[in-house]
């Protein structure tokens, strides 16, 4: 079984699940709403880590039966967050995040992307960190500058929008749109490897001199932009 974990409104995840089924993978989609109503048993000890959760309809999902995961949960399910409150709300959110990080980490098989403390579907790095990683991977980058006079929030906002051209890395494959020169493929793979994110959207924008420059990366890219070729790469990565 390959799990697709996503919020119910994640159209890219729904698109990916359909494409993966067309390619013969046994896909089970578990949405945030379903997880919000689940019952949990997560164990850690001498025998390693394992998870069993029971969905509201009675279906049991056990970590030992999972052969791979397309993980698009960037945070706790909205459905769960909406129904909790009271003076202990903040504590409950921290506890639930701790649980989610742990059980996602216990998933077996290829996981696109593994959960990290900096993001449940991968590390949401600051643009300054991406700038360093991208430069050291051999991607052409623009200079980055941040000072005491700048609003820190602006750097996150600038990182939000995807660029005019997005390359996708899925496992050992890098898919470049036609505009991007082929030599960037190897550097894109190096970036994903260094970042520890087997599924990565890498954005590029044209500079004034006509060359393409790295502008950002996303651990939760819009998969639809990658089309059928990306679906092929996802299927290969999850079936590995």
């Amino acid at each position, binding site marked *: 079984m390959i799990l697709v974990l996503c919020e119910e409104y994640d159209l890219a995840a729904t698109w990916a699940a359909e494409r993966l089924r067309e390619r013969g993978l046994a896909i089970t989609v578990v949405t945030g709403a379903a997880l919000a109503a689940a019952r949990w*048993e997560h164990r850690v000890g001498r025998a390693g880590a394992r998870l069993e959760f029971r969905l509201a309809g009675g279906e049991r999902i056990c970590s030992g039966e999972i052969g791979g995961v397309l993980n698009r949960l960037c945070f706790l399910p909205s459905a769960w967050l909406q129904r909790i409150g009271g003076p202990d709300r903040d504590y409950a959110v*921290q*506890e639930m995040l*701790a649980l989610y*990080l742990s059980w996602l980490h216990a998933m077996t098989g290829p996981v696109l992307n593994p959960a990290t403390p900096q993001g449940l579907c991968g590390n949401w790095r600051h643009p300054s960190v991406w700038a360093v990683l991208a430069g050291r991977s051999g991607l052409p980058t623009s200079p980055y500058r941040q000072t*005491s006079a700048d609003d*820190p929030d602006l750097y996150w906002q600038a990182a939000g929008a995807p660029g005019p051209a997005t390359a996708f890395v899925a496992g050992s494959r890098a898919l470049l749109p036609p505009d991007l020169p082929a030599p960037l493929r190897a550097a894109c793979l190096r970036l994903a490897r260094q970042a520890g994110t087997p599924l990565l959207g890498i954005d590029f924008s044209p500079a004034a001199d006509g060359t393409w420059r790295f502008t950002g990366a996303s651990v939760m890219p819009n998969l639809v932009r990658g089309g059928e070729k990306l679906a092929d790469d996802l299927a290969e990565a999850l079936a590995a």
Partner: protein
Amino acid sequence: MVARALDELGADYRVFNQRHVANADIVLEIEAGEVDGTLRFAGEDFRLQEMSAAYLRLMDDRLLPELEGEPEGSAARRHARATHDTLYRWLEIAPGRVVNRCEPQASNGSKPYQAQLIARYGLLVPETLISDDPDAVLAFRREHGTLIYKSMSGVRSIVHALEETDYARLDHIRWCPVQFQALVPGTDMRVHVVGDDVHATEIVSDRLDYRYAKRQGGSAELRAARLDDGIAQKCIDVTRGLGLEFAGIDLKITADGEVFCFEVNPCPAFSFYEANTGQPIALSVARHLVEGSRGSARRSPSPSRDRPADGECLAAVT
């Protein structure tokens, strides 16, 4: 304590006191993957590339006493926030030795997640169940005997044993899963690891959670201890494996000699242990910083072929 130890070593260092942030400025520049810029404080300018090691004990800048009474969005608050944010960003990517960067500290925010990482290094972790099902908890208790429960996030909690009187409210866990663990009887040990230095402290207490023994009318006695070489090496390995330069590791050693690891603290408040035992933990930190400034430092988390330049080490304190 670290600053005094640096003095003992004759190290050339500076202390960035965040309470003086109003008179500090930083410029961070990244080009082709290389990090540089300038940091100005206490009337001096430093190139970021010349900083070869740093020890961090920063508080939340929004709570600085110097900002008390400042309205949201004031010039002073904006400057403090922007300076601290840029400082943090630099420290996360700076080549050289940073004790400790923020990113690797975050594993401590989920104890069961961290336990999975710890287990890779040959240390046992307590049998743990996280559940919102009372029946599962009772079955776990029948399997493992006495259970304790505590928070699984970074929010501090007092460890409690699950008593029969608690069964009546076990239903409450349906609202949010709770972490239960099999009680591990034995001797508490706190191990401070700094690079390759290991300082083991045995704690003898009549309370389940020695940290709160006095508050609960009990006692906790600390004494320097000798750790088996194999265990010491595992402590070094797990610290390094988690990406940390300095850690406070909570162990329990059973009567059978099994060693369980409960937690790796990435920002250990070591002064309590040093004050009670005389163990030179601060000196280890100081030496580790100085060694980093001599070019034997670990690399930044981003792959880099740069060697840190000889230069000052910077200690940041509140």
